[in-house]
């Protein structure tokens, strides 16, 4: 028998269709579920992309913080725990539906997605701190104005800014691995070029400092020069350019350090660290810029959102790490099982919000949101088991006809179950005073006893 982990295509599509219908039914009771499903599908896509080439890994790493930020934006304002829980169920539902269609995530995809989550969490944490700092300064404008003057006012501040810039440039030049630019046979040429660039930056900085020092000293004797020194030291263009160069060089140096560290921890000849780090930094940067570009978001809300993003991404890294271990051990729950569990949970949450049923539209709405997901969960679990057996015995490319027969049979049972349960519920509503919850439970118990007895007899 084969070891194809994917479900046969027809069975997988049927389960995904059932999940889609159930998501719509759940959205009748709690609209946030729809947003959660979209976030889950986005997460599933990022995990799927992580299994591909490094270009796709970079795109996935960039998409991950954006999608999770969308999830935070959907679930965060929910307020009520039931709504947040329903939205969370929607996320799991979307994630599992992607797994049903594309197959169980591979360990390498989970490893990369987890690394991207961890890297994004660190960057998002930094972004949250930046947002807090902006909030303390009173907004983006004051913060941008303050950045060039972080090293202080006047010539002394400019001296420090120049020194910081040249140190950052030198660090970036020496920390970026030579393999990013050259091949081993041309390593000497690269070293000469890098050293020349570093020397040039150093000489330029020293010259600038010397010129500035001379002007500062001379300004004591020649008053007009004092004006010139003040203009240069306080120029937004000069200080802003130096600050921008320093920030870019510092980001490159930190990223290069992280890439070097990951290379030292691997034995393989290939490593997706560059794609993951570049993607994560870009994704969080785009999300940060996008949130600020909206203009209407309070700075403290941005800080909280990115703090939550960092926490969720950190939890995501932990989940990915645990799931990867389970996949490697072979005891990870299959996507169809996870999907069935999330559907059942969604139905139970929806059903748990209603105590007494009445013959009104509200009961119909919640009843649909309860029965349809639970029936779909049973269907997904049943045909998921069938599909796994079929894939194991025949292969992923099994023919469609027997699958359709089996899907029709299981679907008919689920549909008949929903119909009978709805009729029973209507009867319970009519006989509400007589058929209380304990009485209904008694009826269910009797049905179970009859079914169990029949089962034993037939066996």
């Amino acid at each position, binding site marked *: 028998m084969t070891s194809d982990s994917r479900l046969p295509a027809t069975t997988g599509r049927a389960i995904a269709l059932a999940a889609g219908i159930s998501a719509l039914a759940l959205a009748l009771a709690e609209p946030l579920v729809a947003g959660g499903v979209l976030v889950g599908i986005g997460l599933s896509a990022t995990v799927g992309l992580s299994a591909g080439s490094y270009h796709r890994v970079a795109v996935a790493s960039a998409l991950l913080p954006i999608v999770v930020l969308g999830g935070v934006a959907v679930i965060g304002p929910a307020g009520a725990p039931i709504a947040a829980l329903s939205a969370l169920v929607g996320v799991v539902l979307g994630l599992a539906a992607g797994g049903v269609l594309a197959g169980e995530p591979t360990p390498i995809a989970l490893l990369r997605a987890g690394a991207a989550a961890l890297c994004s969490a660190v960057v998002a944490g930094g972004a949250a701190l930046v947002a807090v700092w902006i909030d303390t300064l009173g907004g983006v404008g004051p913060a941008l104005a303050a950045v060039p003057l972080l090293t202080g006012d006047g010539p002394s501040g400019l001296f420090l800014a120049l020194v910081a810039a040249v140190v950052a440039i030198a660090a970036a030049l020496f920390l970026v691995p030579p393999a990013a630019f050259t091949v081993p046979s041309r390593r000497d040429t690269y070293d000469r070029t890098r050293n020349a660039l570093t020397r040039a930056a150093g000489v330029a900085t020293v010259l600038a400092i010397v010129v500035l020092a001379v002007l500062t000293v001379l300004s004591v004797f020649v008053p007009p020069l004092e004006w010139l020194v003040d203009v240069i030291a306080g120029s937004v263009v000069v200080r802003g350019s130096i600050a921008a160069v320093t920030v870019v060089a510092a980001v490159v140096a930190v990223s290069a350090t992280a890439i070097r560290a990951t290379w030292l921890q691997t034995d393989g000849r290939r490593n997706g660290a560059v794609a993951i780090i570049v993607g994560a930094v870009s994704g969080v940067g785009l999300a940060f810029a996008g949130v600020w570009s909206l203009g209407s978001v309070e700075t403290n809300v941005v800080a909280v959102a990115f703090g939550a993003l960092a926490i969720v991404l950190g939890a995501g890294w932990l989940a990915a790490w645990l799931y990867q271990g389970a996949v490697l051990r072979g005891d990870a729950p299959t996507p169809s099982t996870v999907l069935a569990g999330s559907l059942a949970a969604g139905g139970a949450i929806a059903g748990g919000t209603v105590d007494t049923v009445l013959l009104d539209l509200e009961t119909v709405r919640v009843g649909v949101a309860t029965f349809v997901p639970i029936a779909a969960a049973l269907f997904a679990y049943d045909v998921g088991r069938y599909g796994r057996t079929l894939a194991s015995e025949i292969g992923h490319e099994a023919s469609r006809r027997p699958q359709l027969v089996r899907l029709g049979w299981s679907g008919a049972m689920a549909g008949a179950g929903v119909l009978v349960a709805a009729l029973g519920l209507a009867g319970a509503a009519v006989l509400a005073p007589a058929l209380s*919850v304990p009485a*209904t439970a008694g009826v269910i118990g009797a049905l179970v006893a009859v079914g169990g007895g029949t089962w034993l007899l037939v066996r």
Partner: protein
Amino acid sequence: MSDRTVERLAGDEWAIAATLALAGLGIAAGSQLLVAAATLPLWYVAAAAFGTNQPSMVRVNRRISVRDGASGGPIDDADESTNSGSATVSADPGETVTVRTTVQNAGSDTIVDLRVVDGVPDTLPVVSGSPRACETLEPLEETTLEYELEPRRGEHAFDDVTVRTRDLTGTVAETWRAGAGGDDAVRCSPVVESVSLGDGANDYAGEVPTDEGGSGLEFYAVREYEPGDPVRSIDWRRYAGSRELATIEYRAERATRIVCVVDARPSQFRAATTARPPAIERSAEAAEQALEALVAAGHPTGVVGFHEQRLTTVAPGTDPATRREASQLLEGVREADFLGYRSSDRTRTDDPVADLPRALPGEAQVYLFSSFVDDEPVDLVERLRARGYAVRVISPDVTTAADDIATRLESLDRETRLARARATGARVIDWDREQSLGVLLRNAIRKGGRR
């Protein structure tokens, strides 16, 4: 047909657990909806309880055909398969074995879930298609598993077909092994004596069919009569009907002359390891076997020793003297006789690559035996192809055994040279040590460009 196994698959416990969980949750939360929803899994419990086994009957027939891997057309087929008989199909390496196993529902009830796995021999890899299938079959309906195998040396018997049926509920499965009628084995054991000749031919009458009209036995075409055509070639029936003269042409059959060129330069004394024979010895051995096979088939065959500064030649022929001289020349090459074979046709040259084409007959196929560890053989192939010779290259590989970087680089260089030779239109066979010489020669000889 072997014993049948009926098993009831585990499958309803989960539904009972779901019922109890939902009912318990509903009672705990005081939700009538959840209590009512607890009835949903009971349908699956009931389905599992009432699932029964329905005995099924299938009829299986297997048919095996052999397809030439290069041409794509069927070249061999077993006798028409029957349910009672069995047959062994012969195939050669390089060909593709196509298996069509037909499974028919011979019972009176529909089989909703029929799973079939053909008994493919473990030693034969499936290269296309699948020997597994799952189908729903109405009574007397049939399905066909079609897949392709790569033949390997030896005789390989197919096992019985494994059949498994499931009922509609998926809770009862019946498994058994069904014997297949028709073909049941593949034999793959080519011998060098049975090699066939390719289509390359010269202008002399012989037995190789060509794409030209002329004298022969097989009908080729009808063309307008031209003065001088033999009277016996005129299509008299057409003349009786339309009063027009037409000439019938038959497919011309030509002879082929073959020259085996053996690279005997010092570079060919290299071996893969000290325990293995050098390239020159393997080339001479292969050339000698090819010579014997071709001469036995009636094709004039000669040998040229391709030395550093001389060419030793035995002209193509089929007579015993030619065979004896060719064997002596090859023996001298194999024994590393630096003086070479003392033939009457022994030419000193400063540029053997340039002079060798001039020493060949005008119409001939050339078989070049060389390890291609340097560039001269590539130059020789290019020159021969430029002059229109059909060239086959048999290249013993002496660069695969070592793990050192230098040898691996030489191996890459050699592969590049072989690729350059292929690009000229020559048929190149990279002769690995493990590959059978007989199979190799068969592949080398049978493929040829039609004139």
